[in-house]
């Protein structure tokens, strides 16, 4: 079997006596559109935090294209191509949308520490930030401070920042939370235009969005993988329906 884009082997995480991730063996294939679902408290965000290096696992390993990342810092993992968005917006609230995205692009291009040239004169950074902002239909708000935007628009800035890192693996932690359903198509459109070889893992409660987006779904329950398969397989799985999907699909 070829190396997956991102893979975990027997990944475990406990906070004291509480085991929040239990022997998770997970594969995210190149170009996958993969969804991770599960009831509240299943350990989905913890799993993302382990993948990105915010938390270090108690046991097990994390591989990016077969290369062990387990002990690398958050910043190193970003440089290797893992980007994420947060469940609750983590933005530079006092800065403009354009500045928010520029900061990410500057770091990726390795000019974030340059002291002499004005940031506004880095035409490559400025132009790429503008491109991403247009892609997410944020053009009208580019000059406004993030704190002045409605929450739904701020969610899109989260994604623009992650895309500014030009990731190989994109982890979206409940990207549609707080976006009015009328606007979630902007999000899906943006994901649809991503290069095909980027692997996207989405954590989402909106089942409609999950089934429109994903070609593979993993169900996490109590920190362990409960079921995995294509959307059709997951939808047909009686146990999954019983513990999680029941209301969402029948109702």
């Amino acid at each position, binding site marked *: 079997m070829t190396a997956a884009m991102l893979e975990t082997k027997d990944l475990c995480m406990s906070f004291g006596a509480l085991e929040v991730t239990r022997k998770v063996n997970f594969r995210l294939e190149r170009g996958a559109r993969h969804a991770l679902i599960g009831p509240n408290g299943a350990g989905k965000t913890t799993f993302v935090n382990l993948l990105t290096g915010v938390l270090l696992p108690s046991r097990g390993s994390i591989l990016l294209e077969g290369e062990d990342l387990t002990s690398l810092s958050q910043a190193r993992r970003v440089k290797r191509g893992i980007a994420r968005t947060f469940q609750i917006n*983590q933005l530079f609230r006092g800065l403009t949308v354009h500045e928010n995205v520029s900061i990410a692009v500057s770091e990726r291009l390795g000019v974030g520490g340059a002291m002499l040239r004005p940031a506004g004169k880095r035409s490559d950074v400025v132009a790429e930030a503008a491109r991403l902002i247009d892609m997410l239909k944020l053009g009208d708000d580019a000059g406004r401070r993030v704190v002045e935007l409605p929450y739904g628009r701020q969610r899109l800035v989260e994604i623009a920042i992650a895309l500014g890192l030009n990731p190989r693996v994109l982890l979206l932690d409940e990207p549609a939370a707080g976006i009015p359903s009328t606007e979630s198509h902007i999000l899906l459109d943006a994901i649809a235009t991503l290069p095909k070889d980027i692997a996207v893992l989405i954590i989402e409660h909106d089942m409609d969005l999950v089934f429109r987006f994903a070609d593979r779904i993993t169900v996490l329950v109590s920190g362990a993988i409960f079921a995995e398969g294509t959307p059709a397989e997951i939808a047909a799985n009686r146990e999954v329906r019983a513990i999680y999907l029941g209301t969402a699909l029948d109702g």
Partner: protein
Amino acid sequence: MSAAAHLARRHRFRWWELLPWIAGLAAYFAFPTYLAFATQVLITILFALSLDLVLGYAGIVTLGHAAFFGAGAYTVGMLAAQLGWNEPLSGLLAAALVAGAIGLVSGLVLLRTQGLTLLMLTLCTMALLEQAANMGAAWTGGFDGIPGLSFGKILGVFGFDVLYYRSQYLYALAVLLLCFLAVRVLVYSSFGQSLTGVRENLLRMHAVGAPVRFRLVVAYTISAALAGIAGGLFTQATGFVNLAVLGLDRAAGVLIILILGGYGRLYGAFVGAIAYMVLEHLLAKAYPTAWQLGIGLTLMLVALYARNGILGMSDALRRWLQGRAAQ
């Protein structure tokens, strides 16, 4: 105007940015008897500007910034007293190097922490230096400090005179201008932008792959060096140095000045230092026994009603006027 175009123009000089320097030169001719006081204002502006880089831009809350002012002041004083090294420009360079080195070493340790822990540790660093200056009497003069220092001519031409501050004032103005230009370049650069990123959201800054602590240590070191230059200027201008250069009074004073003027705005240091020191001067003249009451009341009003300082207040006023004009 698009956001990109705005960003591309933001660093350009605007006409009003000449005003402080014109005012600085005008003050030289207009208030020849106040030049000693005015020199202290310039030195305080530079000190507050150095604090703005770490507090206003990088969001590092410190109560110990006088440690670096004091390090610079003592470096210049001790070099002159012990080694007879009294050439002014190289003295300032030495002050910057020593203060910068202390900033680097303490920053490597301190900037692992945040919030109250960081605040306490900055205070402790300053207290350590203060005690060192107090106990190393053979070098520092201990509690009495080093009085009666004299310095060589600036560029071999302009001499200092502690009774007539003309040279000191223009010298301080020139040093302030150079340091200000350096800070201005820095805050509009990608580096400066990344510092504001750290200030606005640490978690996100890590998540975009920025070497956060390294950036903070670099900013802290540069800021310490600038504060050291301010301290060095103080010793050269006044001809003495004592423990007052690195106490809590000075550290808290510069913090108040920056908050009064408006932090994270480059010109807050100018407005704050002038407003605070002129107010202090006038109140002390009018009410020699109770002038601190007036300062306290003013600061309470600013803290309650003008969170972003005087410059923040003028921004709000401008927006209000524009809003009225638009109606």
